[in-house]
C-alpha cells in the first residue's frame, strides 16, 4: 500500500489564537509585531489586515500610515511552536505519526488511517471541520508524498485529496515555491522565467543540479515520490499517574496504606528516573458505591522521597472513608517539577534552605496547621518600608537583592502604622515623648530623621521622617512623622515598629 500524507497549513495560526483569547479582535484588522533593529516589524497579520494590504515583514509605522486604526499587539516568538505542538498532540487522534512543519503547519502520516473515518475525503473534512470549530483557519491536502501534499495545501485551491500517483501532474501547474525551496532559488527561478514546475521539469537534471544544487533535485524528487522522505513525529506526554485496581474492595486503613505505599513506589521510581519531583499530589480512592475519596498533599520543593511523601499522606488517611470498600486507587501527581539529583556529601554540613530536611519539616507543618500560616519574606527593592519586603511563594525563591542593612530597621514592623501623640521640637528634631496605647514613653535617646519620600509612581502623599528612639525603660521604637512640620497641623505622628 502506498503511503499517504496530509499537510495542514494554518494560514493565520497566531492571529487565530489571539482572536480565540479576545473575540473582539475578530472584527478588526490587527497585527502582531516584534522589534527588529529598532523598529517594530509585523510578524503576523489577520485576514482583515491582509485585506487592507498589510502583511508580514512590513514595518508597523508603514502599516499604521496605511491604516491608522490598526491594532498592534506584541508577538511572542515562541508562540507558534507552542501552539503547533498543542495541535499536533491533539491530532494524534487521527494518526499516531504527527510532525510539526515549522513555522505554521503540521504533517500527518495517514497511511492506513483514513478508512476509519469513512474514506479519505471524510477524513480530511473531519480534520478541517474540527480545526475550524477550534477557531483555526486551515488548509489541508492529502497526497502520496509530503512534498506534494505540502505544495497543494499551500498553493492550490482545488480538492484537498490528490489521488494516489497524481502528484506529478498536480505539481506541474504549481509555482516553484511549492517545492519548499530556499528563497534565493525561488527568486532565481522567477528571474529565469521558470514560474511553474512544468517549465523546468523537462530540463536535463545535470543542468538543473549545476544551477540550483542537489537539494533542489532532492526536493523535486521527494515531491514527485521518487525519493522517500521521513518526518519526526511528536510524542504525547505521559501523565504522572499510577493506578492500582484491587481484586477485593479495600475497607481497612492498613489496606489503604499498603495501596498508597505501592503506588508511591512506582510513581517515585519513575520520577527519580526522569529527574523529576512532585509538588502537588492527589491520592484517590474509587469506592464501590461510585463515590471518590481523595486526599491531597503539597510539598515545598520537588520530591520523590517515598518515606516523606508517605508521611504527608499518612496524616490524612484517616479522613478517607472506605464505606463498602474501595476498588481502585489512583495516585496522580498534578504538578511536577525538575528535581536535580542531590549530591551525597561526605559530611552533612548544609543547614540552610538547601537542606531537604527543612523543607520536609515544613511540609509536615503545613500538613498540620495549613500552608497559609507559614510565611517566608524576601527583600524587595523599595525604599518605602511597607514595600521593602514581600512574601515568598516557595522555598526556592531567590532574593532579588540582598537585605539592606545600612539603615536601622525594626525587628517587628507593624503591618499598619499606628497613630501616636508626640511632643517634639520643630521643625525636624526627634520627639521628646510619645503616647502609645495610653502609655507615655519618655524618650532618652534618638536618631534621625531618615526622610523617605513616597514612591510617586505608586502612590501619592506626604513623605515620612523616621526616627529610632529609646525610652526610659530601654525599649526602642521606630516612629515617624508623616509630612513636614507645619503650623496648620497637616502632619501626623505614627509608630511603625519595635526594635527590641
Amino acid at each position: 500500500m502506498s503511503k499517504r500524507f496530509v499537510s495542514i497549513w494554518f494560514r493565520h495560526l497566531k492571529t487565530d489564537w489571539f482572536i480565540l483569547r479576545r473575540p473582539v479582535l475578530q472584527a478588526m484588522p490587527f497585527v502582531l509585531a516584534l522589534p527588529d533593529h529598532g523598529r517594530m516589524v509585523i510578524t503576523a497579520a489577520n485576514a482583515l489586515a491582509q485585506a487592507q494590504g498589510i502583511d508580514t515583514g512590513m514595518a508597523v509605522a508603514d502599516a499604521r500610515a496605511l491604516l491608522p486604526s490598526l491594532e498592534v499587539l506584541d508577538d511572542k516568538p515562541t508562540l507558534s511552536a507552542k501552539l503547533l505542538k498543542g495541535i499536533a498532540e491533539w491530532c494524534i487522534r487521527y494518526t499516531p505519526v504527527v510532525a510539526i512543519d515549522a513555522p505554521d503547519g503540521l504533517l500527518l502520516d495517514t497511511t492506513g488511517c483514513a478508512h476509519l473515518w469513512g474514506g479519505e475525503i471524510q477524513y480530511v473534512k473531519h480534520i478541517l471541520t474540527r480545526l475550524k470549530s477550534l477557531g483555526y483557519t486551515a488548509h489541508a491536502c492529502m497526497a502520496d508524498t509530503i512534498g506534494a501534499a505540502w505544495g497543494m495545501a499551500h498553493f492550490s485551491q482545488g480538492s484537498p485529496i490528490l489521488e494516489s500517483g497524481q502528484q506529478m501532474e498536480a505539481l506541474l501547474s504549481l509555482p516553484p515555491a511549492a517545492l519548499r525551496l530556499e528563497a534565493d532559488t525561488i527568486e532565481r527561478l522567477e528571474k529565469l522565467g521558470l514560474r511553474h514546475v512544468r517549465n523546468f521539469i523537462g530540463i536535463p537534471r545535470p543542468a538543473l543540479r549545476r544551477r540550483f544544487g542537489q537539494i533542489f533535485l532532492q526536493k523535486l524528487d521527494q515531491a514527485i515520490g521518487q525519493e522517500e522522505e521521513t518526518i519526526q513525529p511528536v510524542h504525547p506526554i505521559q501523565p504522572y499517574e499510577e493506578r492500582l485496581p484491587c481484586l477485593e474492595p479495600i475497607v481497612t486503613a492498613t489496606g489503604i496504606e499498603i495501596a498508597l505505599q505501592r503506588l508511591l513506589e512506582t510513581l517515585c521510581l519513575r520520577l527519580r528516573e526522569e529527574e523529576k519531583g512532585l509538588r502537588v499530589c492527589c491520592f484517590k480512592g474509587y469506592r464501590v458505591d461510585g463515590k471518590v475519596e481523595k486526599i491531597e498533599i503539597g510539598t515545598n520543593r520537588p520530591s520523590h522521597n517515598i518515606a516523606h511523601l508517605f508521611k504527608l499522606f499518612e496524616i490524612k488517611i484517616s479522613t478517607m472513608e472506605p464505606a463498602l470498600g474501595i476498588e481502585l486507587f489512583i495516585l496522580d501527581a498534578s504538578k511536577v517539577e525538575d528535581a536535580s539529583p542531590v549530591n551525597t556529601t561526605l559530611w552533612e554540613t548544609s543547614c540552610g534552605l538547601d537542606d531537604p530536611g527543612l523543607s520536609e519539616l515544613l511540609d509536615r507543618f503545613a500538613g498540620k496547621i495549613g500552608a497559609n500560616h507559614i510565611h517566608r519574606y524576601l527583600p524587595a527593592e523599595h525604599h518605602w518600608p511597607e514595600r521593602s519586603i514581600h512574601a515568598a511563594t516557595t522555598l526556592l525563591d531567590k532574593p532579588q537583592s540582598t537585605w539592606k542593612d545600612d539603615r536601622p530597621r525594626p525587628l517587628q514592623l507593624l503591618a499598619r502604622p499606628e497613630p501616636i501623640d508626640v511632643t517634639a521640637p520643630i521643625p525636624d528634631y526627634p520627639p521628646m515623648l510619645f503616647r502609645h496605647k495610653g502609655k507615655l514613653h519618655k524618650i532618652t535617646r534618638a536618631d534621625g530623621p531618615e526622610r523617605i519620600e513616597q514612591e510617586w509612581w505608586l502612590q501619592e502623599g506626604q513623605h515620612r521622617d523616621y526616627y529610632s528612639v529609646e525610652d526610659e525603660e530601654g525599649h526602642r521604637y521606630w516612629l515617624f512623622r508623616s509630612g513636614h512640620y507645619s503650623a496648620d497641623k497637616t502632619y501626623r505622628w505614627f509608630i511603625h515598629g519595635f526594635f527590641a
Partner: protein
Amino acid sequence: MSYTELQVTTNFSFLRGASHPEELVEQAASMGYKEMAITDRNSLAGIVRAHVAARAKGIRIIPGCRLDLLDGPSLLVYPTSVAAYSQLCSLLTVGNFRAPKGECHLYKADVYQYAHGMKLILLPPPVLNGLFDFDPSFEQVMKEYRDAFGEDLYLAAARSYSGDDAKYLYRLAQLSARLNVSLVATNDVHYHEPARRELQDILTCVREKCTIYTAGFRLHPNAERYLKPIEEMQRLFRHYPAAILRTQEIAGACQFSLDSLKYEYPEEITHEGRTPLEELTFQAWQGAKQHYGDNIPDKVVTAIHHELSFIERMNYAPYFLTVYDIVRFAREQNILCQGRGSAANSTVCYCLGITSVDPTKFELLFERFISAARNEPPDIDVDFEHERREEVIQYIYRKYGRDRAAIVATVTQQHQKGAIRDVGKAMGLSVDSINRLSGSIRDYTDELFESKRLTEQGLDPGDKHLCKVLDLTRQLMGFPRQLGQHTGGFVITRGKLSDLCPIMNARMEDRTCIEWNKDDIDALGFLKIDVLALGMLTCIRKAFDIAKDNYGLDLTLANIPPDDPVVYDMICHADTIGVFQIESRAQQSMLPRLRPRSFYDLVIEVAIVRPGPIQGDMVHPYLRRRNGEELVEYPSKELEDILGRTLGVPLFQEQAMKIAIVAAGFTPAEADELRRSMATFKAHGMVKKFGEKLIKGMMDRGYTLEYAQRVFKQLEGFGSYGFPESHAASFALLVYVSSWIKCYYPDVFACAILNSMPMGFYQPAQLVIDAKKHGVEVSPVDINYSTWDNKLEERSGKYCILRLGFRQVKGLREEDIGILISERETAYTSINALRDLGVPEAALEKLADADAFRSIGLDRRQALWEITARNERPVALFTGQPSDESLEQAVSLPRMSTSEHVVHDYAATSLSLKAHPVSFVREKLEQLRILSTKELNEAKDGQQVKVAGLVLVRQRPGTASGICFITIEDETGFANLVVFEALFEKYRKPILQSRLLMVEGKLQREGEVVHVIVKCCYDLTKLLRHLTASQEEQLPLLTLSRADEKPEQDFEGQRRKVDAREVKREKVFPGGRNFR
C-alpha cells in the same frame, strides 16, 4: 555668615541632573545666593549657559567640575585663575582623548599633574560601613590627596536625611580633624526644586535602562538634593558652622570668571610680515585686479575702501583671512566652494574668491549684514562639495593642529518624540502605547498634546498615569541629551584651544570637537567658521569636469555667462528638474507665476518658497504686487527703506528683524534674541513675551494692530525656517549655474547629477527621462562600454550620448567591478572571460539582472542561465577546455516580453531605457477614459479629468494644514495632484499604497501651472502586475483528473485563498518619496 552652593549638577551631566543651568541660576538668584558653582561630571559643557544666565541675574558663577576618577574617589575642582582654568581644560581634554566619545577617563595621577591653582573638594562615600565608620581605604586615599594638594583640599559634608546624618557628620569631622582637611558644606544639588525629583528618577531609569518599577535602590529615597535656601543650609549645619564658613573661603578664592577668557585669532594667515589688515588689503586689491583687470570699476573701488575701513574699525581682518586661507586651499585642490552667510556677499569676499556672486550685480550693503552695534563676530559659512569636504576639514586640522582647531558641538536636545519615548519606557508603558502617544504629537503646533488627538489614538486623557507621563515629558523636553558634532562649525585659536575649553573625540574618526555649542562660543566671542557640505557643488564640479573632457570648456562658478535670457526662459517654464533649490514641486509651481528674469528675481524665488513667508502669508501679496494687480504701498517711510526691494513685502529674515528694530523700537540685541528664542526650542515661553512687546511697540509707533500681528506671525515663521538675503543670494548663484548647464548641456548635467546621487528630489528614472526629453541619447549599462560612473560618449546630434554606469546597478560594489573595467582592453566576448578575471559570481548576477550583457548577445535571462551554472569550469591545467556546460544541450528559456524587461530594469537599476511602465497599460487606461499627463496639460480649466501615473512624491508639508501634494508620472510627463485633508483620510490607503495611482478630479489651471484637485483616488497597481505575466500562462493547462471530486464538497476556508504567497512584482517600482 553666608553660604555658597559648591556642588551643583546640571542637566549637562547627562541623565543625572534634572534642571537646566538657567533654572538653577534663577532659583539661586531668587534665594539670595551671590555665587554658585557649577560642577558637572567630567565636563564643562553647561558652564557657559549658567554664566550667561548668571550675568543677566547679577550673580556670579564659579566654573567647576566634578572629576570622577577611575582609580579614586571623586573630586570637585574649582580653578582660581585663568591659568588654573586652562589646566582644568587640558586635564579634561587628556581624559576625553583617552576615551571614546561621551566618556572621559581620568586617573589620580592626572589630577596631581594639573591641579595647580585649583581648589578641590573630596567627596566621601555616601554611607558608613557596618562599623559606623568610613572604610580605612578611604582614609588612605584622603591622606594621599592631602599630601598632593595640601591646603587646597577640602572634605565635602552633605546632609542627605538618611537617618544617621549626625553620626556621619561626626565621623567626617573626626576625619577632617585627624587629617587636617577642612570640612566644607555642600548639598549635592541635582535639581532646583524638590518637585523635579520625579524627573530625576526618570532620568535615572533611562540611564540604568530600567523602568521606574524595577529601578529599586538605584533611585534616591528622598528629594533632598534640591537647591536649599541659605538659612536652611545654615540650620542643617548648625553644629558645624565652620563648614558653612569654608564655602565662603573657597568662593572668595575662586575669582576666575569666563569673561576673562580671551579669544585670539590665529596668526599664520599673513605673509611677509604684514599685519592682518595690511594682508587683507593686499589680497583684496590683488583679487580685484584679477576679477576686473586693471580698470577696476569705480563702484567696486568705493565698496572695497568702504568695507576695508569698516573691517578695520571692527578688527575683523583676521577672520576674513582665515576664511580666505581655507577657500584658497580648496581652490588649489580644485574643490568647488561657495561662501554664504552675513558677510560672505561683500565686495571684499568676492575679490578674495570666497563668493562668486558679483556684488556689482545688485545692491547688497555690507553693514546690512553685520551690525556694528552688536559687535558680534561676522558669520561666513562656506559650502564645499559634499564628497570632498573631509579634505578641507583635515586641512584645517593639519594646518592649525588638533590642539588649536576643533569642531563646535551641537547639544542634541530632547525633542517631543524622544522625550515621550524615554519617559514612556521608564514609566513602563508598552511599546504600543508609546507609539500611540508619539502618534498623537503633531509637529508645527504649540500645543503638545491635544486631548482630542489622544482620544483619537484610543488613550484616555484623564488617566492619571498618562497625565504623569505627559507632565514629565513636558519637563524633559528641551533637556540636552548628548553632545553631537556641529555640521561644520570650526573654532580656530592662536594659542592652545584646550586652554579655553575641553576638547573631545567626536564619533566620526579623525574629528575632534569642543564641548560648547555655537551659542556658547558666541556668548564668549569666539570665532567660528562653518565648513559645510553641499551636494549640488559636487554635482556642479562634476559637470565642469565632464564639460571640459567632452566639450573642452573651462567653466568656473564665476565665468558662467550671466543673465542669459534663454536660461531664464527655461526657468520660467519650470523646466527645472534636477536644478538646485528650484526643482521642488512648490518651487516649480511658483516659477511660472513669478517669472524670474534677473538674478535678484532668483534670490527672491529661493527665499519666497519657504515655510517662513508661506506661514506669514507673504507670498500672494508679493505676487500680486509684482504682477501689478495690487498697489505697492508702504505703511511708513522708514519701512520703505527696508522693504523697497521686495515691493513692501518682507521676505527675508533681515527685513523682519529690521522691522522689529525700526518699527517696534527693539534694540538690535533684542531683535537678535527674539530670533534666537524662536529658533531654539520653544520651551521657555519667551516667544509670547516678545510678541506682546513687538505688537505694542509697533502700535505705539502708529501701525495698525493687524499689520503688527502679521509681522509677528511672520517673525515666528522666520525664526526656524527663515532665509537671510545673503544666503538666498549665494544659493541663487548656484541655481543659475545649474540652470545654465542644464539649459545648454543637458547631457553634461544629467551625467553629473546621476554621478552625484543621492541628491535632490528626483529618482534616476526621472532624471534620465528628463534628459531624453531634452534630446540626449541614453545608452544602457553594458559590460563592454560602461564605467563605474555614468559618462558621456561620442557626439550624436547636438549632444553626447550618455552611457549609464555601473553605479546605477543596485547592490553592485565598486571594488567588485574594478577589475572588469581595468582589464577591458578589448571587448569581452563571453561570461567566462569575466569569470577568469575574478569578477565575483554575485556581481555577475547583478550585471545580468541589469541586462548588461547585450553586447555579447545575451539578454538578462540567458546571461543569468549561464552565470548560475557555477563551479563547473575547467581550472588550472584545463583552463580554456570546453566545460560540461558547453556540452550541455541548449535549454530554451521562456522568452521575455518588453514589459517584463522593463519591470526587471526597474528592479535592477530603478530606471528603464526600453519604455515607460505606464505605456504598457495605456490601452487599458484609454478604455477607462483616463487622460495621459500630456493631454491633461491641454485640458481646460475646471474640466473633470481622470489621470493615472506612477507615484513619484507624496508630500504633506506642515504648513499646508493637512493637504497632501502628489506628483505622478506617466510616459508623457508629470501631473500634480492636490488632495485635501478630508479626502486624504478617506483615500489614505490608495494614496499611500499604490504605485500606479488613478485619480478623478477637477483641473485647475493658473497660467502654466496645472493641478488636479482630487475627488477620488483608485489604486491601479494591479494593472502593473500583468506586465510580468508571460504568454504561456494563457495556454491550456495539463488538466488534472478531477473525476471523483464532487462539486458539493465544500471545504470551508479552502476557497478563499488569496495569492498571499505570490511574489509581488509591482514592488520593484520605487514607492514614491514621502516628505512630511
